[in-house]
């Protein structure tokens, strides 16, 4: 039984990002050692011959390196976020800081659950102000999409100058999804 190997097996299998606490329980070792092992693993993946890397957004997990994402996307049918959640996140990233009530006005009551999910996953933070919440994105948001906030906003804005009619909000193949090729 090799600890580093077991750690890799954990991160390979986990559906949700793992916390250091959780990993220390499974490996039966101190949190301190887990941190060391995670570092070793990170270095192991740094090699350019490796296609995966260690991600640390809301916990640790293994993910495909950005540059290979686009090429492997057809091998899985699952998206990481529902369309509703993505739509709300897009609106937030475009208008932030934005009031929750403003989003409810355009998206409807499901907004509340979408915002709860985005907050749970650490992409946004909310601040109570009188009766509504003011919402902004967090650094995790940039980290997750692998691009700077400003670029994301530009992408959305440039879509505006194209002056395309609205309904294709969810069309595939917008610029952000192509980041893998850059």
């Amino acid at each position: 039984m090799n600890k580093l190997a077991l750690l890799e097996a954990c991160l390979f299998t986990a559906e949700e990002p793992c916390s250091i606490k959780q990993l220390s329980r499974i490996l039966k070792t101190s949190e301190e050692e887990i941190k060391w092992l995670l570092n070793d693993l990170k270095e192991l993946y740094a090699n350019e011959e490796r296609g995966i890397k260690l991600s640390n957004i809301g916990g640790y997990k293994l993910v495909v390196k950005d540059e290979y994402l686009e090429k492997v996307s057809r091998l899985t049918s699952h998206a990481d976020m529902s369309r509703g959640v993505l739509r709300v996140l897009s609106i937030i990233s475009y208008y932030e800081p934005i009031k929750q009530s403003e989003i409810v006005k355009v998206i409807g009551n499901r907004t509340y659950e979408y915002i709860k999910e985005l907050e749970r996953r650490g992409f946004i933070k909310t601040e109570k102000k009188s009766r509504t919440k003011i919402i902004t994105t967090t650094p995790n948001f940039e980290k997750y999409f692998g691009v700077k906030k400003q670029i994301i906003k530009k992408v959305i804005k440039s879509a505006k100058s194209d002056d395309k009619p609205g309904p294709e909000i969810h069309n595939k193949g917008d610029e952000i999804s192509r980041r893998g090729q850059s």
Partner: protein
Amino acid sequence: MIKEQELIKNIIISSDWEEVITNIVIDENMDPWSIDIIKLTDAFVTYLNTLKFFDFRIPARFILVAAILLRMKCDILLEEEKERREEKEITPLEISHIKSLEAPIKRVPKRKVKITELVQALQKAFAFKEKKKMKKIKLKRTFETLIKYEEDIEKRTDNLMKKINSYTDEKIAFSTLVGVWTRKNIIYVFLPLLHLLNAKKIFYLQERFFDEIFIFTKNPVVK
């Protein structure tokens, strides 16, 4: 009413209106904004009617407290109204031009099946087969019992009719016929009763649902 009476007691013993409000919140665990002032006043009038001696200080304090509670209620209603108006005033965001972000792909980690799970699966398959067999046996038994019941229904109908005729009263309560009120007894009387009813040998009357059913040997409506 109990809540209101407690409140009045509170108003009488408190030294000033602040103490009344504090007591409402702390002792009664009530929301001062949600007190029904009309109910409170009614309770107060009832209270006044029970008094033999009239102390003017008490109604004065009551009016003050009621007025304060009313004021608090007005404030919150106004605030809510203002907020609702504000919400209406929100100009809807222009979102038609915002393209949705595309989610990074999600890999669904799957794990291999363990050999113990293969064994468990086989045990379940056997259990499943057993269950199927058991179901068949159960079903067969149920049918057999049902048929047995069917056989003596005529006999039971005759017996019930004899029993009804033995009463001299012109109306007989269903519960009297049942005797000891058990599920089995009820069904034992109810089923032949339906047969008699169907044959128009008896009539029945029930004022309200779930009330007593009365059985007549002659049509009570015609009478």
